[in-house]
């Protein structure tokens, strides 16, 4: 169990500390935006945590990570998170964000959607800058591999992989496409959205994928709209920052 989000170079928080941060189970059930389809369910998982579970189908054809969502599988069969929610209120967060998942024998595929009136991506090699629009992504395997990454609207990705007893390893997607409908870093106009399509190869997670393979996933998107403070929405994270998203390959 990990806390989320966490500095990429920080150590994993011990489970006892995480649980100590919230002695009672969350009172708010995980909700999916009722206005967007999602194919998951909410269950009470280990330790009394509410978990949001998604069944992720195998892609029927090759996925090209170009930021376009023109593969039919993204529309027809992909697992959908529905709208990300505010971790405290559990209401759909504004601006709108959502994610979809697919997999094949090579990789786990992410489609991240961000509605955005002012797309900002100023970060460089050292990481995102405050106010940048980013997705935080974390995946944890039963084998103890943890991957944390930050996806920027500019296409920059900052990621690390940790394995028990081994030094951190830098990571980037095996394939990545970002498409933006708007102008980066220009607050004078109104932008519309940006989309990330990324592939996470199984070998980085030390997984031989198959049906019933389980991953624990958390996603958070933070945005700073014009004339407003930074706001975040998430999927697979409870208000204490614990990973509650569970995906099972189908």
């Amino acid at each position, binding site marked *: 169990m990990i806390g989320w*989000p*966490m*500095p*990429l*170079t*920080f150590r994993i928080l011990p489970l006892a500390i995480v649980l100590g941060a919230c002695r009672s189970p969350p009172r708010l059930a995980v909700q999916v935006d009722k*206005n*967007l389809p999602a194919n998951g369910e909410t269950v009470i998982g280990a330790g009394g945590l509410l978990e949001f579970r998604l069944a992720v189908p195998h892609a029927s054809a090759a996925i090209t990570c*170009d*930021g376009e*969502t*023109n593969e039919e599988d*993204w*529309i027809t069969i992909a697992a959908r998170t529905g709208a990300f929610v*505010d*971790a405290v209120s559990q209401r759909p967060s*504004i*601006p*709108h964000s*959502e994610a979809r998942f697919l997999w094949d024998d090579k990789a786990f595929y992410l489609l991240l*959607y961000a*509605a955005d*009136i002012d797309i900002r991506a100023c970060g*460089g*090699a*050292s*990481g*995102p800058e*405050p106010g940048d629009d980013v997705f*935080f992504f974390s995946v944890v395997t039963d084998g103890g591999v943890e991957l944390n990454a930050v996806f920027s609207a500019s*296409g*920059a*990705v*900052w990621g*690390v992989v940790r394995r028990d007893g081994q030094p*951190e390893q*830098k*990571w*980037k*997607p095996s394939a*990545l*496409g*970002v*498409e*933006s*409908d708007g*102008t980066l870093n*220009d607050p*004078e*106009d*109104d*932008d*519309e*959205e940006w*989309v990330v399509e990324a592939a996470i190869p199984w070998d980085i997670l030390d997984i031989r994928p198959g049906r019933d393979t389980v991953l624990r996933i958390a996603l958070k998107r*933070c945005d700073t*709209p*014009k004339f407003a403070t*930074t706001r975040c929405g998430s999927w697979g994270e409870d208000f204490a*920052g614990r990973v509650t998203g569970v995906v099972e390959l189908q």
Partner: protein
Amino acid sequence: MNIQNKIMHSLIMMMVACSMSGEAGKEVLVVADSGIQDKGFGAERVTSDFVLTDPAALDPVSADPFTSDPIPTDSGIIDPILTDLNVFDPGATDTGSSGTCGSLVAPDISACCKSCGSGWSCQANGCYNGWWCNLDTCKCQKPPDPAACGGHDSGPSADPGASNPDSGSGGPVQGTKLSNLKFAVVGDTRPPNIDDTYGYPTAVITKIWKEIAAVHPQFVISTGDYCFANKDGNQAAPQMDMYLQAESAFSGTVFHVMGNHECTGFTDSNCGPGNKDGMPVNYKTYLAKMVTPMGFSNPWFSQFYVATDGSWTAKVVVIAANAWNEAQASWLDAELSVPTTYTIVARHEPWSVSTAPGVEPSNQIIARHPYTLLVVGHTHTYRHNPSQRELIVGNGGAPLTGDFNYGYVIVERQEDGTLQVAEFDYDTNAVQDRFVVRPDGSLVQ
């Protein structure tokens, strides 16, 4: 520390950590190669100050030609001021389909009128929907009063679809009588991804339309983008059907403004005969499902309203910035030249989205005329820009980009002649914003 602060704190700490690790020569983070694509949808900001050509014309009483001489809306008389306008009359009556009445020729007799556009079943007289041709003007108009013509059958037809609009070639025009001016605005109802019919925001738009219907506006302006579909694919129709199904909760008149997604999807697209993007499936589907049923043949059209007591007049002028051509420009200038107490201009793209082909040209035309509000969508939020008298209503189900939740706007004329504009949260019905404007669009503080 709340979750947002926690996130930002973590982000800052991460950057600090990364910076420190960089200083130590240990590169932890990497920038991945990416295939960034920019559709080039970005908009340039355009600012402009309006100069009213005749501020006195905004006086709701003295400058209104209808105040002292209201339009006889039930008589069939054509007001010369309003001829050649692309409007319809929901209150038209059906006198019959045979014979003549003075200079008026019934539908089944060959005549000089040429009001039939594409998609309409043309009558022998050159009109459609049962309208008669006036041989003096070669323009169509509603059937004459049967009493004046020797006993044609007549019957009321309140259905706008039974009217006989004319897209520029002239037609009968009268303002529809209203007891008060009260209308709703809703806009932008598309799924996040192309062809994602499964992800259509049906629940949002269904609830919005039920709430709109409950407040009984006299008409509704929908600001466009009813779909997100491949321009020549097969998903525009089912998505628009979903929209119309939601809309069916409201039985009154709905003006469907054309959005860029009713063309190719690109903001700079331009559809229609002779334009660079021609007639893609999305455009044809929009015309068939949302324009022609209203009785219009072009995606630009207007409607005039008159107070039942003659105290005010209003016009709604709908621009199609993604089907822009010279004919529309001429039409727009003519429409806006007709003085009315209130002028509501509707378009999909806001003032600043200059990439849409019709935005800057129509901005220039609009700026030459008085108007009360410019109602737009495109940006998926709600916003009031007083400097341009612009009301952005784009939070009708499309992925939200701004600060406002999904919702809609109700505009209602007050006793003092001002218009109150209120934006409602679709979930709580709470008013999220409210302001009042005068007929000239100036803000009442």
